[in-house]
């Protein structure tokens, strides 16, 4: 297992694989976004209670999904970084963080735009909005700790410890905030009895989810590449100074 992972840890190999994937990921993203937005904004029917405002959901909900799953992905990749001393693992968590923060921000903004017509105010201290806000703070803390170390390999380990503690805490925070103020509708898609959303609304939602995922992958590939090259550049510069 460890050996297999290390093959990908070799930056040269990693760079080659990602370069091959990149153009495809970009094309898929554009297509999915186009289809998803068309379905979401024009083709889908209005909601029986919420009217046209429900369309905000197609931008909002997948962004919230991404915000959560990117954090989980960062935690997993940080854990592999700590256990298998994987050179790319820390860097990929670092590369994913700002993208995750952006999705969280998007979810917050669209959530409050949705809140205006639905709840009568731009911001309510509703459980899910609040836990999104806290998630946003966790992302900020993660990025801040990377910026606070001169030594990049130390920064990687410190950030990994932080993201793992955060990952243990996220469910607790989520749960506590839910109890604190439950105003937001309960989970609709991932429930035991199957989705509670009508298929005409569910389809564009899922398409948008896929579009976001591939958008994430595309940006992520660019960022990881930039991180690896930046690290190399730094080492070359150091060697240059010492000559």
């Amino acid at each position: 297992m460890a050996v297999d992972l290390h093959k990908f840890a070799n930056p040269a190999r990693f760079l080659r694989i990602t370069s091959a994937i990149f153009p495809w990921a970009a094309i898929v993203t554009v297509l999915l976004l186009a289809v998803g937005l068309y379905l979401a904004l024009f083709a889908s029917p209005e909601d029986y209670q919420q009217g046209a405002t429900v369309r905000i959901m197609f931008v909002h909900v997948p962004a919230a999904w991404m915000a959560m799953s990117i954090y989980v992905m960062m935690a997993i990749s940080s854990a592999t970084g700590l256990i298998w001393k994987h050179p790319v693992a820390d860097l990929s968590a670092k590369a994913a963080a700002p993208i995750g923060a952006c999705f969280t921000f998007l979810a917050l903004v669209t959530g409050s735009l949705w809140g205006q017509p639905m709840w009568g105010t731009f911001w309510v201290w509703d459980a899910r909005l609040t836990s999104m806000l806290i998630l946003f703070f966790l992302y900020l803390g993660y990025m801040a700790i990377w910026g606070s170390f001169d030594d990049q390999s130390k920064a990687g380990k410190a950030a990994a410890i932080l993201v793992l503690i955060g990952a243990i805490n996220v469910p607790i925070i989520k749960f506590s905030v839910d109890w604190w103020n439950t105003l937001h509708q309960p989970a609709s898609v991932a429930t035991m009895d199957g989705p509670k959303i009508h298929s005409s609304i569910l389809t564009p939602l899922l398409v948008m989810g896929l579009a976001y995922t591939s958008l994430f992958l595309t940006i992520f590939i660019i960022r990881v590449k930039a991180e690896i090259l930046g690290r190399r550049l730094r080492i070359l510069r150091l060697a240059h100074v010492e000559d």
Partner: protein
Amino acid sequence: MNKFTNLIIRDIRLAVRQGSAFTMTLSFFVVAVTLYPLGVGPELNILARIGPGVLWVGALLSCLLTLDRIFQADFEDGSLDQLMLGSLPIELMTLAKIIAHWLTSVVPLILITPILAVSLNMPADGIWVMMLALLVGSPVLSLIGAVGAGLTVGMRRGGVLLSLLVLPLYIPVLIFGVAAVEAAIAVLPMGPHILLLAGLSLGALVICPIAAAAALRLAVE
């Protein structure tokens, strides 16, 4: 075990001899809480309503002020290196320092709470639950704080970063701590909230020293 208690005793003795840090945190707590009536207005109903939250947030912030001292002083004078080298496992060493921090920086806050609670017009049956909730929940503040302190030890402007890292993680304690007091005031059962706080404390008791120890290993490298 002897080394463990010795380390706790040393840290308490240092805090007592330095004294000033001790009284400063307490004064901060008192001043911070007194600011609320000035900002919100002296209306007793409103104060009683926000009292539990004000006291918890005040305790949180006062605790935050002292967090960076958990490891920073030992890091600066080289004691941390020696503590890492002792035969006491590093996880237990951090736990000892966390216990000392809780005893010296957090327990005094709990002891002074009743006076502040009265000044906020909190009903009598809320006050002792407030103390109980603080007693059961506040170890989490020291424990999670120690992880943040370990990660930021040795940084020039670590204090600000420390707050950014630690405060979001304090939210569950804040919520259930306040909920316990509000439940007691509203004559609802507060037992479940206290149990939850105890659960959080015990969970943090196991996980946080491990994470803080990992952070310290990084710091001395």
